[in-house]
Structure formats: C-alpha cells, structure tokens
C-alpha cells in the first residue's frame, strides 16, 4: 500500500493500527479518486492472491444516501463479489460519479476459492472530510 502522502500524485492510502480489526486512511483529489483509492486500499489488506490466467471483469452500479454511505456500499459490494464469485480484483475504473451514485468496472482474476479475510466495511467514525489535498476518510474493516 502506498503510504507516502508527499509524493507527486496526491492520492494515497495507509493502514492505520486498530486493536481488533483493520483500518486504513485514504485520500483523493476528488470523490472519484477517493473511491478508487479506497478500493485499492481494501484489497491490499488481504494477502496476495495466487496467480491465475483467468481474467475477469464485473460491471456494477453503486448507490448511497450520502458520500459515506456510497463509500461503504462500494467497498462492501467488492467483498460480496469477491466472496460469491471467487474473484480477486486489482483494478477499478469509475465513471459518472456523483455524491449518491456511480458506475464501476472491476478487473481481476478468477480464483479456486475466495482469499479475502475481510468480513465487512463499517461506518465506525466514518466521515469523508475536506482536506488540503481534496478528500480524506478513515475506514474500519471488520475481520
């Protein structure tokens, strides 16, 4: 996971210590980048998936009543797809992003079994905050 906020690209993510679960702080210049980077941070919490030649793509739409709900619904949908389709995603393309809705393409690989150790993304103390670099949020994930 990229944990160097001083780099040229102002989007980054870093894991934050949490006693029982996992957490990461993510930044983006705008909501689309924040959502994309959060997805990358989420999948980076898991151990590396075994190599597979079978590439997959999923196309989904995500809704939420506000930015935080949109973020949580998005990340939980990734976990749902990984667990039910036995896939691991490492690239995310987002489009038509608003505060309540967006479209996403998820690219990754087919696996024999799901490798994620993550149960769910929580709303715990979640707030998508304005920062000097754009937007920032800290996400706690139940494991």
């Amino acid at each position, binding site marked *: 996971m990229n944990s160097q906020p001083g780099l040229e690209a102002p989007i980054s993510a870093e894991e934050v210590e949490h006693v029982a679960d996992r957490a990461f702080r993510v930044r983006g210049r705008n909501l689309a980048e924040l959502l994309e980077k959060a997805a990358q941070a989420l999948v980076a919490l898991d151990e590396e998936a075994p190599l597979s030649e079978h590439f997959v793509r999923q196309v989904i739409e995500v809704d939420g009543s506000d930015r935080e709900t949109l973020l949580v619904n998005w990340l939980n949908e990734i976990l749902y797809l990984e667990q039910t389709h036995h896939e691991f995603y490492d690239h995310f393309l987002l489009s038509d992003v608003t505060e309540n809705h967006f479209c996403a393409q998820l690219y990754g690989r087919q696996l024999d079994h799901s490798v994620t150790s993550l149960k769910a993304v929580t*709303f715990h103390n979640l707030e998508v905050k304005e920062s000097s670099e754009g937007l920032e949020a800290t996400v706690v994930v139940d494991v």
Partner: protein
Amino acid sequence: MLSQQNFVHLQEFVWEIPATFRDDMRVPARLYADEELLNTALTDNSIVQLVNTSTLPGIVKHAIAMPDIHQGYGFPIGGVVATRLPHGVISPGGVGYDINCGVRLLVSLTTIEEIRPFLQEIASALYANCPSGVGARGSLHLTNTELDEVLHEGSRWMLRRGYAQSEDLDRTEEFGRISEADAKYVSEHAHERGRGQLGTLGAGNHFIEVDRVAEVYDQATAAHLQIYPDNVAVQIHCGSRGLGHQICEDYVSRFQKTAQDYGITLPDRELVCVPFDSWEGQEYFRAMACAANFAFANRQLLTHWIRQTVDQVLAGRIKDFHLRQVYDIAHNMAKIEEHEIDGHRVRLCVHRKGATRALGPNSPELPADLRAIGQPVLIPGSMGTASYVLTGTAGAMQQTFGSTCHGAGRVMSRAKAKRTVRGVELRQQLKSRGILICAGSMSGLAEEAPAAYKDVSQVVEVVARAGIARKIARLEPVAVIKG
C-alpha cells in the same frame, strides 16, 4: 482523553462513569475490571465507545462493559446495552457483523491420554473435513427452499435431516432456533453469501479446538455437565458467516437514513438504530433471527462432522467414544428478555456484543435439567491458552441483565501481531508445549498469537469475583484447527 479519574469506583471490580460526564449520555457507563484491566482498556478507544453506547435511545440502568473489553466499531467488544421495549431501539451495529458468533462445547468420557496416540490424525482429519477460511464453502449444497428452511428452523432443520441429536438442541441457547425469523427480510445478496457456507468455520479468531479438562472447580456442577478431569473436550467457535455479515451490512447502510427520519442523533454512525417496534426495527430483528438460526445450524453441522471424523479415526481403537454437547452459546446477539428493574418485570432488547448470556439458576428459559445450576457459559481463551466453563448467577441477573464476558479480549493490533510474531515459529513453540496446530494461513496464525490477547484467567477471575459468573472448569488445548 479519559483516565481512571473519570471513574467512580463503586465496589471491587465495578467502575462507573457518571451520566454527567458527557451531555449526550442517558445513563452511566459501567465497567467490570480490576485496576490493571481498567488501565489496559484506557489504552485504546474502547471506553469512549462504551460511553457512546450510553446515548442510545431507550437504554435502561447503565451501559455495561466486561473485563475483556477492547476497541471494536460502534459498540466496544464486551459491551452490553438493554433498551426498554416497545419503543427502545435495536441497533444492528450493536449486534455486529458476525451475528450469533458463538461457542459450542462437546465433552467425552474418554481421557485425553487414551486418544493422545491418534491426536495428530484427528487434528489433520478435522482440518480436512471442516472447511475453514472466510470464503470457504461447505459440502452441503442447499436449494433456495432448503436455505430458507434453515433460516427459519436453525438447529431443528439439522435434527430433521439427521445432523443432530435431540439432546443437542436442549443444550443450545434458544434451543437452536429463534422463532421470529422471517427470510423475506434477508436480501438476495445475503442468501447468495450464505448458500454454500453452511458447515464452515471461517477465518480470524474462529477455531475448532481439542482440549483436556485441566481442572474442575465445582465437582457437583461439573459432574452434572459430565465434565471430568483429564477427559477430552472439543470447542467450536464460529458464527453466521457471510450471510450474517451481509445482513448487518444491509441494515446498517439502510438505517443511516432511517435513523435520521426517526430524529435519532448518535456520536458514531456505526451505532445507527431504530425503535424496536418500528417496521424497520422489526424487519431487522427478523433478518437477524435468520442469521442467528443459520449460525446455530452451522455449529450443529460442524458438530456432526466433528463427531463423524473423530469416530472414523478412533474406530476399532477406542471403545464407546462419544462427544456429548455441554452447551452452545451466542456472544453477538440482540435478545428479547424480561428483567427486573425497580421491582418490576420489564421487557428489554438486550444487545450483547462480545458478551455472553449468563442466566442464573431457576431461569425459565433454561431446559429443566439446567435450572438448578444456571446456564453454562463458555469462555474460550486465546490460542494456546486456557478456556473456561462457567455458569450464570443470580448476581448476573441483578447486575448485568444476565450477562458476562466472552473471551480474553485483544490488546495488540493484528498488524502489530504480524510484525512481531512469525506464524511458523509460533506453531513450533506451541508444538513444543504439546499443542498441535493446523492452520491455513501462517500470517492469520500470527494475528491470533497469545501475546495479542489479555490473560483470560484474569478476565474470568474478575467476573467470578464480581459475582456475574461462577467458575466450573478449566480446559487446556491439545490441538487447534484454524482458518
């Protein structure tokens, strides 16, 4: 920043933050701990989380935390909150994602020494036959109709299909079924996540453990439960798997808006809640009951496979080996219960998040043969350390809505545990102490290192001396099967 100065020391092992501490508190916040465990709790955000739970609408008496308290999300792990019905709230985050995560204990009349020559074979066979890992899929493939039957019937479905003995259901909290379950309030996503996962263990801190009964503190009660020194015991720790995770996700997300509609403001969005008697509250409760039934059925199916596996390994080697169920408890659940408040019987929604129901003697919810001794309470320790069998007490009924602790409680983050402990070395250390480990992930093993947890014996000592549970027996591990 909270400190010991913010607490009133009410009596030995009971500390309270008065309701005047923060404007939004509705009741005091109470912690069961000795001074060392209190100071440990102050090193993370768990006490702030405890205070936050005291703001839930309809909460009665006090928000409670057990000595195994540690930082969670929304509620602290080890938290108990009771709200007055019908208008008090129900909070999906107050139950958690792993709805009805719990522990089941089986015991045998055979000693561990008798089966020791076959232990490695038993451990390997259990690891092969009881699928583990978060996304693991079981070998029981259910149709949509069958899955809904499981959600409605819980362990009864397993009995009907030959995966249970009727005595198992008598020795399961709620007799293995919550009757309010209604699968029409469970999303298609949740159905899909749960469909292939019945009979699977999961990852994280879930496990199957073969134990030796190391010490008995109350011989009469232990004998009543057929727990005898040096005999074989088996614990199963798991929950409702992806189905429960998805149900919690669905309702926590949906209630973000609904809570606002009810004018409920909270210090943490994970605490979202709605009035229990609202139609949204009823929908969640019925969906939660489905996940609870799935978890009861899940532990029952694992029980069946454990019995079958051990029987196969010991066939022709050990005569009359049988694993009898002592009890099965939930430690993430919201239950509708009656408790006495100011001399009146009051219906409450009791949220236990990382806390165990501990009904005292003569509780009508218990099967007849357990009423004299109170509800068995199962407290698993961290990997490689002791576990405890306790019973509920009258003190728990008076002080904590019939609740007690649920385990050791973490003190070290998973990331730090992985940085400081190597799974392979840990497995070797445990092996040198006579504890076999079968695990799918060495980093997962490192996360669960004993050093990442509090001392379970210290936690149990607090609840016993505070009078909210009674010590019956101590178990020590000889083989651990993990995801």
